[in-house]
């Protein structure tokens, strides 16, 4: 399980546009870099990040080797009902990780 940093507002008003910031610890080995023996190290990157809000897909990112290590993404969504934000990262080597956070919506 990779370390993640997930930042959402503690509460939001219904209809408010909120920012979601996520970071995951991952080397994002490009597949273009030679190792100490001169041979190219195999690619090992996260290829996809997606966010589901109460099971509805609201945002996703298709990522390539040009994304920095320990990838950070910030995006916006409209607060609707109190519910779960499911944040999923998937990548090379069968890497998959989902973190669930509760978004509390008032009004």
């Amino acid at each position, binding site marked *: 399980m990779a370390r993640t940093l997930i930042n959402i507002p503690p509460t939001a008003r219904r209809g408010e546009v909120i920012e979601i910031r996520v970071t995951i610890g991952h080397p994002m080995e490009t597949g273009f870099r030679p190792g100490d023996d001169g041979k190219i190290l195999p690619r090992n990157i996260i290829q996809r990040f997606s966010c589901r809000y109460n099971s509805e897909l609201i945002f996703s990112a298709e990522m390539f080797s040009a994304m*920095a290590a320990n990838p950070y*993404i910030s995006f916006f969504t*409209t607060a609707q009902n109190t519910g779960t934000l499911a944040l999923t990262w998937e990548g090379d080597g069968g890497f998959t990780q989902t973190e669930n956070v509760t978004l509390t919506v008032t009004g």
Partner: protein
Amino acid sequence: MTELNATTTRRRLLASAVGAGAWVALADSTNAATDDLTAAVSRFAGGASVLKGRVKIDIAELVDNGNVVPITVSVDSPMTAANHVRFIAVFNEKNPQRDVVRFSLSPSSGKAMVTTRIRLATTQKLVAVAQLSDGSFFSHTVDVIVTLAACLEGEG
């Protein structure tokens, strides 16, 4: 003058291919790297014309380190069901691979603004392309200066 004519011709060709999904090969650029970049953008747009405007890349002109470059792309859009941004794609000019990232948004996004951190191998152009819900494409191109760190890490 020759370049200006070539660009105008290119735009007319692309404009005529809107909706047809035609892919126009662009062979008249003298810079191969920029040409690949133009081809990647054109592929993403399915040959449709890509207009300048609405999209804005926020990035340092001279980066501290090419390994970790913060970038924000925002698109001027009301983000309603009728009029919103569907995709934002970022392409580079001189990395080993043109693609950087492709974001998918939805009307519930509220705001068409994404921030991330990317790798830039060297000084080069970056292009952010947005596809709107009506099928149109807009882009913004920037030049970014990237230099090597002064003291590189040795072995061991």
